[in-house]
């Protein structure tokens, strides 16, 4: 498969603090690649180094097989960038902004068509200040598409949006993917990554903790299955029995329990025991990216404590 991005041992230091500590990964043509992590994990810094906005302290970045250091303008012609919470000229209309950004590139796609993708054709003559937050985010995505780029970078496109607007944005991202674009997206919403990303890298404190196909890396979690129970109360004996199969946690709500299970066999055995207990309701779930994320970052936090 053709590699669109190759990152090798990338470092970025600001004075004494390190924002990115030697990460390496590739992004392949046609995929949606997710960089996940909490705020300050180094996602945006990594993205901006690939986009040619920040100079790496060390390491190598190739985009379309060319070194970003020496081919910045060539690469900028062919990529589209949506910045995190980026604002646009507040005194220009959407159409004027798109036309202006169009003129910065050799190639330019139809602005009318772009507005139609995100249902903003009737807002074309409004300014950024006159549209809603969700509309702004949608607009900032199509503004990154004016040059019909092969590679699109979306930096936390759904941060601060309500659930409906977020889902709406997912559809737009998938629509862009359908048009054959390669997408690199950062987010701290794990369920978003599960829906959108073919492959993900989980970042924490400037390092990549895990990288791989979204479905496959979820299986790396210690407890890939879980049973959620809702019952008035569990006796000490019942708790003991369930704990034999896996890890029993009190759930987030009252009378809720979560039993995390390490494998399929324990899941089947545990289900028999759950039947005996006869809870009011119970559900069986697969672990999510979020579980993996908490497991990975949680462990790291413990490791740090032991060190100190």
């Amino acid at each position, binding site marked *: 498969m053709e590699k669109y991005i190759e990152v090798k041992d990338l470092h970025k230091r600001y004075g004494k603090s390190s924002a990115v500590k030697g990460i390496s990964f590739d992004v392949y043509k046609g995929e949606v690649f997710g960089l996940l992590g909490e705020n300050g994990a180094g996602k945006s810094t990594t993205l901006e180094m690939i986009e040619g*906005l920040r100079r790496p302290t060390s390491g190598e970045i190739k985009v379309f097989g060319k070194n970003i250091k020496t081919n910045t303008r060539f690469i900028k012609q062919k990529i589209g960038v949506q*910045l995190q919470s980026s*604002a646009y000229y507040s*005194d220009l209309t959407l159409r004027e902004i798109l036309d202006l950004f169009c003129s*910065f590139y*050799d190639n330019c796609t139809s602005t009318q068509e772009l507005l139609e993708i995100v249902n903003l054709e009737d807002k074309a003559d409004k300014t950024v200040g006159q549209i809603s937050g969700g509309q702004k985010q949608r607009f900032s995505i199509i503004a990154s598409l004016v040059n019909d780029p092969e590679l699109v970078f979306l930096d936390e496109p759904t941060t601060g949006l309500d659930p409906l607007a977020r889902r709406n944005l997912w559809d737009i991202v998938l629509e862009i993917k359908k048009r054959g674009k390669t997408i690199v997206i950062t987010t701290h919403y794990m369920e978003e990554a599960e829906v959108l990303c073919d492959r993900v890298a989980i970042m924490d404190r400037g390092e990549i903790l895990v990288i791989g196909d979204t479905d496959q890396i979820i299986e790396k979690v210690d407890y890939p299955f879980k049973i959620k129970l809702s019952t008035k109360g569990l006796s000490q004996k019942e708790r003991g029995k369930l704990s034999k199969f896996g890890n029993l946690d009190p759930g987030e709500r009252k009378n809720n329990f979560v039993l995390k299970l390490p494998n399929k066999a324990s899941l089947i055995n545990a289900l028999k025991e759950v039947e005996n207990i006869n809870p009011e309701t119970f559900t069986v779930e697969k672990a999510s990216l979020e579980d993996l994320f908490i497991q990975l970052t949680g462990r790291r936090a413990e490791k740090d404590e032991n060190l100190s």
Partner: protein
Amino acid sequence: MKTLAKLFIADLKILVRNRQALFWSLAFPLIFTVVFGLFFGSESQSLGSLMIIDNSKTELSESLSDAIKDSEVFTLKEGLSEEQAREDLKKGKLGALVIIPKQFGEIVESSIQVPSGTIPSQPKFNKADIKVVYDPTSIQTNSTVVSVVDKFLSQFNLKVQGAENLYSIEEEKLGNENLTYFDFVLTGIIGMALMNSSIIGIAVGMAKYREDKILKRVTTTPLRTWKFIVAEVVSRLIVNLFQIALILIVSTQFFNAHIVGSIFTVFMIALLGGLLFQLIGFTIASFTKTTDAAQGMSTALTIPMMFLTGIFFPIEQLPKWLVSVVELLPLAPLLRMIRTVALEAESVFTEPKNFIIVAVWIIVCFAISASRFRLSEE
């Protein structure tokens, strides 16, 4: 070229649609023009109001009244009785009152008896004093009235005595005879308008673009930085031209302002000044991260220049040590250049020092901005 044109048009639209930019470039200087125009422009050179009460109504008294009127330095009031006039004087509504007594210009004897007949007969006049009543606060009005009346009387006295004027004064005002204080301030306002709109406009504008991440967004595109800056600078210079034109039109059409020299050269100097102040704006933008900081730093630079560099009074009136500092500030030489051209109709290069100071500032600010100003942090 297409990119540059598009950017330029977009920048112009932004400048026209942005209320704050428009205020600093157009409204603010215009307010100054109107205020100063109202005070010093419309009744040029008037030294105050004056009333003449002529109790004599002779040929002589009338020619005295005419002499005062012809001096054209007073606003004449009419139709008040002496009592009302004195009342107005007390209230400060009137600057001075000239009372011509009844005996003034009255001829006592129609002719003098001349025995030999060699000397032509002359009328003999009654002795009389002209009374000037004035408000102590309008000393200037008073001293001028007194000197006008006194001059008239001494000339008449001499004439009656048959003497000839041996010495007299020939007055010559430097430059154009019609120039007023308003013309001086007006040229100052032009400099002030250029300074405020350009320094504040660029410094705050760029800081806002940085805060809004517009500068960063622009750097994600292949657009070359110089194109972005050139479009910004040129669009603002165009606004500067409108700004100066508007000030000149309002001041000359409504407030009797005079520009004696070449208007074209005035505009050229304005463009040079616009460029200079925009570079100062970029220099500020290189060192400030937020809009507030940029606003503060530009104010800290523009306010002292506004009061010290000669917008409202010639800097020579300042203490000597201060003059030597102030004349090096960017606005001072620019104002001198504008005034040399506009008020004295001389060449900009009459005093090369001014041109050199402006050039040095442009070079220094350009060097700093070129090395320090970045569209995005690294």
